[in-house]
């Protein structure tokens, strides 16, 4: 604690607590929000695609008529 006499001095930030902690607070809140959204999206996408896949049929990749696209196949 070279810079600060006490924790309360640290939190007070020389009277600029609102500005400093407001900046840091919002930044980390936004980062947290972004992470939550990213992981929520991952979960949603997996669930939705899984449902879509079940609806189309397990072997969606091999069946014709569903507009699906096998990435690699060994026919022809």
């Amino acid at each position, binding site marked *: 604690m070279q810079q600060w006499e006490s924790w309360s001095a640290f939190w007070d930030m*020389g009277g*600029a607590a609102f500005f*400093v902690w407001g900046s840091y607070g*919002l930044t980390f809140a*936004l980062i947290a929000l972004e992470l939550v959204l990213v992981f929520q999206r991952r979960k949603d*996408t*997996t669930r939705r695609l899984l449902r879509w896949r079940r609806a189309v049929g397990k072997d969606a990749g091999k069946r014709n008529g569903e507009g699906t696209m096998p990435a*690699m196949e060994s026919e*022809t």
Partner: protein
Amino acid sequence: MTNPERGRSLLRFAAPQNFYPLAGRLAPWFAALAVLLTAIGLWIGFFVAPTDATQGQVYRVIFIHVPAAWMSMFIYLVMAFWSAVGLIMNTRLSFVMSQALAPTGAMFCFVALWTGALWGKPTWGAYWVWDARLTSQLLLLFLYFGFIALTRAIEDPRRADRAGAIIALVGAVNVPIIYFSVQWWNTLHQGASVSLTKAPSMATTMLTGMLVMALASWAYTLAVVLWRVRPMILERERHTEWVGAELERAGKLSQTAGGRA
């Protein structure tokens, strides 16, 4: 893959297939790095860097303000780069990358504006002055919004990719022009000329703290973009067999987890 012709024509489907697991493996490492660097940066920023002679403690906002501003500009350039690569090489992964970068870039842009405003109030006495840097930053945020809105508004993914790439490139060409014009305008109108980053005689510890935080935001961006790009790839490639296998695996995982809970 007995047919080499088809193998070639579907070559670009293969790239995401390799990239997807790679992204999944790398992202946690970048995230850990980001946490570590943020901890170091904040420690330097709050406990090592001395109090500023003129501004007092408020200047400590610099440790997120400047890295966020740098990052927001840098991310736009990277977006434009991936867009150009996508248009030239016709690779879909590049477009997906640039779309995954945009929200993070916009977030940093907003953070730079917000911290700038909070720093401005005690320094200039007003939350917002039409300072050249802040104004350019605001316009950059609008460019981000434009890109995001355009790519979301177009339903056909191929058109969305390419239209987004065009607007990203047009924006990237204009960013220096906007910056120059705003600077010009600002000097003529004699607005606030106190520049945020030109804190007089910046101590080396301040600079170190800023650089460490900049590196932390790099690592964070890499991690979050890699995480964001993964479901986008799944969505785009959902017709392929590897995504099918991936989904089945994820489905089993969530089932067993649900069973336990």
